[in-house]
């Protein structure tokens, strides 16, 4: 299904796009969910600049090109091409996905009976998939999540049984490639049963600069009682790519979710919709974000922490570094429901503008309906001054080292929380190279 060459994809999906009837999943087990998602998409409609959630991100602009919804299945990816997304010195299992489709031949999956890692399409009959697919409450209001559920190609299904854990992290490598402009829609589901623990690292690589890859992905996370997930998402691909990432976690009692989001160059557009619904008490949620944007990049982080019940702790720290003409958006919503007494919810967003033309829109949104809570929020915007640069240079520090010094110092609160040394090193190295302009993608 392709939008007319002369027609913008935006117009195509807003008017007259046929429904998902033709999509075939194993036994069509997912088809009813696809149809439901499609009618939801129809009723939600596409966002415009008047839509509150999209005020600072003109999504229409990024959708005006023609894209195909049914991109060719690609599997001719070489190990060499994965290099950009591999993490030196990291000891891990790996799952390589090309446009959302698992490539077992390129992957090293754990042989652990308690942990299932498969294609969503191969798990169509799975009870957990049936129970949770496209069910996260926050996704119900997101048009692009509905569009994804209606037409997604495939994705990863991870299920960790009761008490399951792995001896090393699982590294998911996303390869995005399309011969012609494509709208790529992976949909992943991660379910951790009671007391299961997992560490997931995601990195991405784009392969074809000649066509635009628009990636609209959804990751649903379900943490049952006392489960714990460390979830690192490193977003860095090529310039000719645009991304809307939805990550929606649902936490039951005593569970712990540690999410790290690193948005690095060079995708033109990155929009993150990260949301966590706390449905059981005594949970812990840590959301760490670092976004570093260069050139004309547009990075938009929308986060939502939804305290539905009492005695939950959430802690959020997002830091943005904007260079050149880059634009950043941070909107952090915290909702504390009436019953959510004894909530601790903290949020902070700090930004560093490295050029006159870079800018940031930052806004906290706190909605608190309980009275016995501790909540705080704040944001700062600092500017890297020429004065500071001259001061450092006058001490013998070169311009690039000076900028790196300042950015590393600024990012330290986040990178220091990464407790996998190889990943920490990988990130510092990337940050250094982006800040000094040593690499442009």
């Amino acid at each position: 299904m392709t939008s007319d060459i002369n027609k913008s994809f935006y117009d195509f999906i807003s008017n007259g796009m046929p429904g998902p009837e033709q999509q075939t999943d194993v036994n069509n087990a997912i088809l009813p969910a696809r149809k439901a998602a499609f009618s939801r998409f129809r009723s939600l409609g596409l966002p415009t600049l008047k839509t509150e959630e999209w005020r600072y991100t003109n999504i229409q602009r990024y959708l005006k090109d023609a894209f195909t919804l049914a991109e060719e299945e690609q599997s001719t990816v070489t190990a060499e091409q994965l290099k950009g997304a591999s993490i030196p010195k990291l000891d891990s299992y790996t799952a390589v996905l090309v446009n959302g489709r698992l490539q077992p031949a390129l992957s090293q999956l754990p042989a652990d009976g308690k942990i299932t890692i498969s294609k969503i399409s191969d798990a169509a009959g799975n009870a957990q998939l049936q129970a949770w697919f496209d069910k996260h409450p926050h996704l119900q209001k997101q048009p692009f999540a509905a569009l994804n559920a209606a037409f997604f190609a495939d994705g990863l299904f991870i299920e960790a049984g009761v008490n399951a854990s792995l001896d090393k992290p699982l590294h998911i490598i996303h390869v995005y490639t399309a011969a012609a402009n494509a709208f790529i829609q992976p949909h992943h589901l991660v379910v951790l049963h009671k007391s299961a623990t997992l560490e997931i690292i995601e990195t991405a690589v784009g392969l074809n600069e000649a066509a635009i890859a628009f990636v609209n992905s959804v990751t649903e996370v379900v943490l049952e009682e006392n489960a714990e997930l460390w979830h690192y998402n490193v977003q860095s691909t090529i310039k000719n790519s645009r991304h809307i990432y939805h990550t929606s976690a649902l936490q039951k009692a005593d569970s712990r979710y540690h999410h790290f989001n690193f948005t690095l160059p060079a995708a033109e557009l990155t929009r993150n919709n990260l949301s966590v619904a706390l449905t059981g008490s005594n949970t812990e949620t840590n959301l760490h974000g670092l976004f570093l944007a260069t050139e004309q990049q547009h990075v938009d982080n929308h986060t939502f922490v939804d305290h539905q019940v009492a005695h939950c702790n959430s802690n959020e720290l997002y830091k943005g570094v904007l260079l050149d003409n880059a634009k950043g958006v941070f909107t952090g919503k915290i909702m504390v429901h009436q019953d959510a007494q004894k909530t601790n919810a903290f949020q902070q967003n700090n930004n560093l503008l490295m050029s006159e033309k870079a800018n940031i829109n930052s806004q906290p949104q706190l909605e608190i309906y309980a009275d016995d809570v501790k909540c705080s929020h704040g944001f700062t915007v600092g500017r890297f001054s020429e004065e500071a640069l001259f001061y450092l240079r006058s001490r013998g520090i070169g311009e690039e080292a000076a900028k790196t010094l300042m950015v590393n110092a600024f990012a330290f609160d986040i990178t220091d929380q990464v407790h996998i040394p190889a990943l920490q090193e990988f990130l510092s190295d990337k940050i250094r190279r982006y800040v000094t302009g040593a690499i442009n993608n």
Partner: protein
Amino acid sequence: MLTIKNLHAEVDGKKILKGLNLEIKAGEMHAIMGPNGAGKSSLASVLAGRENYTVTEGEVIFDGKNLLDMSPEDRAREGLFLAFQYPVEIPGVSNLNFLKTALNEIRTYHNLPAMEAKEFLKLTKEKQQMMDFNANLMNRSLNEGFSGGEKKRNEVFQMAMLDPKFAILDETDSGLDIDALRIVANGVNKLRGADKAFMVITHYQRLLDYIVPDFVHVLADGVIVKTGNKDLALELEEKGYDWLKEDVHQKESV
């Protein structure tokens, strides 16, 4: 060590230095005095390589090399140091991390390996004691929230750490309490040596009681209008600058 010939410089189209000449030899201590707005800090800025100053005429030779062709960092690596009149606050960057980076960048320039952590700590401790610099300030963000005097003392501590060949101290004495002035002056005296030179910009003769200069220059309206020995500072303390201005005018009319 440093030869300044007919230096003209302007900032934002305004002429500040108007044909300044100065010769500084190794082992010497030069004091620069002069009225507010004369161009003393501008001279320091031009020497350190601040980019908003444009040199329109003249040259500066530092140890046989053309100083004005070098980037600010290369000037520092070649051994030039400026203790700023107004040190900048840099949040997030720790004082020690900053110094370690600076030292190692300078070492790399001279093809030396990075300093071992142990050696660096030893050096830090030695210089901190030498300058009686508050150890608590070393781990804080660079100058952030430092008092005026603490900032000045940090400049001198940095100077001791980087051990430059030629150091410019721009009003390092203003803002220091009486005890600190003596400590800083003693520190500077310890750094003096046959292969080093200093340019001390000050408004107060008092500093020169501790750091005895070989030459005292008066900078007015972008040029050096008078040069003498330490007694000139005493004379200025007594008479101010006006008599010199008259001197200049008389010269001009001749």
